[in-house]
């Protein structure tokens, strides 16, 4: 490391309370580990300095020697090296990072969670099994809710910053960000195509395009022939094969949809389900909350529902 580079790093570290050496920028991170740390800092501190090591190869090499640490990202707080992605994440979870930044961990309101009778007994069964396998460890149900509202259930021991929610005799554990996303969560245990499974419904989840199978679509059409089902393919393709009751999504149809109540269920289909996904996303972004994409499109319909509809 040459002296000029060392001084440059010194200045960054000494002149800023929080400095992240990362690949890319917080807006456009170029590596998942850098993105994770930047995401944590975005949540905790509004303003922090970043240095993109990819735009300066001297710093990229020198910082490893400077910190005696072989990987990027690297976080400095008040002139002290804190660590890389792993350590930062761990410190974030146990509250040490808040402390280092001079923040108080935010108080998290206890989320209200409803567990159905079926889910309750399935969860107890899972706990009993875990306890019989590992009697010494603590066993609780952990619920994780990611920023993208992917949910995960697991059995785990308590961690220091966990938010504990008692529902009946069960204790649920949430890490603080998950707890903030959990109010109103319901956990059910239902039969699915691969046997019974947990079903989590979260009212905080922003609406997304739901997927519907051709069989379910057929059932819905039998119940309601006036279903708002739109075909995003061309008229030429529709002449070859179409589902009775579907409408061509042309300009007048688009204008018609915009006049509908935003909660109206809308169904979109195409040849295989790709183009219709885009159309569905378009109407979702225009405020419709009940938007379905027909999975597999007309091709799946001919294969699974009505073989009189020709495949092409």
């Amino acid at each position: 490391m040459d002296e000029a580079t060392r001084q440059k790093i010194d200045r960054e570290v000494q002149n800023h309370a929080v400095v992240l050496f990362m690949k890319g920028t917080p807006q456009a991170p170029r590596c998942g580990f850098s993105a994770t740390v930047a995401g944590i800092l975005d949540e905790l501190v509004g303003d922090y300095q970043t240095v993109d090591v990819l735009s300066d190869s001297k710093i990229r090499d020198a910082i490893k020697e400077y910190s005696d640490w072989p990987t990027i990202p690297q976080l400095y707080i008040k002139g002290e090296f804190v660590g890389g992605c792993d350590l930062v994440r761990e410190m974030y979870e146990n509250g040490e990072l808040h402390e280092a930044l001079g923040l108080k961990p935010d108080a998290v309101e206890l989320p209200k969670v409803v567990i159905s009778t079926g889910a309750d007994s399935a969860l107890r069964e899972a706990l009993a099994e875990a306890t019989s396998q590992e009697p010494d460890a603590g066993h609780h149900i952990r619920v994780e809710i990611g920023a993208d509202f992917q949910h995960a259930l697991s059995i785990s021991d308590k961690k220091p910053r966990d938010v504990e929610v008692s529902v009946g005799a069960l204790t649920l554990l949430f890490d603080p960000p998950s707890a903030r996303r959990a109010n109103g969560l319901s956990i059910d245990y239902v039969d699915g195509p691969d046997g019974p499974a947990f079903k989590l419904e979260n009212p905080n989840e922003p609406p997304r395009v739901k997927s519907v199978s051709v069989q379910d679509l057929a059932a819905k059409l039998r119940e309601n022939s006036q279903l708002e089902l739109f075909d995003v393919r061309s008229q030429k393709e529709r002449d070859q094969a179409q589902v009775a009751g579907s409408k061509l999504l042309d300009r007048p149809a688009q204008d018609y949809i915009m006049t509908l109540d935003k909660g109206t269920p809308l169904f979109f289909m195409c040849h295989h389900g790709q183009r219709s996904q885009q159309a569905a996303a378009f109407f979702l972004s225009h405020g419709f909350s009940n938007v379905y994409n027909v999975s597999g499109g007309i091709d799946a319909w001919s294969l699974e529902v009505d073989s009189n509809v020709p495949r092409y």
Partner: protein
Amino acid sequence: MTTALGGVGSSITTQIQDAIVQSLPGSEVQVTCGSPGHFAISVRWAEFANKNRLSCQRLVYKAIAHLMAGDRAPVHAVDRLETSV
């Protein structure tokens, strides 16, 4: 192709393991290869006892520094590094 990749991955796993045990004598090391170049490492070593996590991880990284150096390093990233006593 798959077997070749697996073969390469496993020999790097062994190299990581050997390098750590050599630097930290008496340590118990577990290395798993996630995707090519990405590893999870767990090290149990009695002498970690009086050190903070940063120092423990530094010791492990120092042991494998030669495997992580350069643009074509066999070890691109350590996805998870656990140290315990």
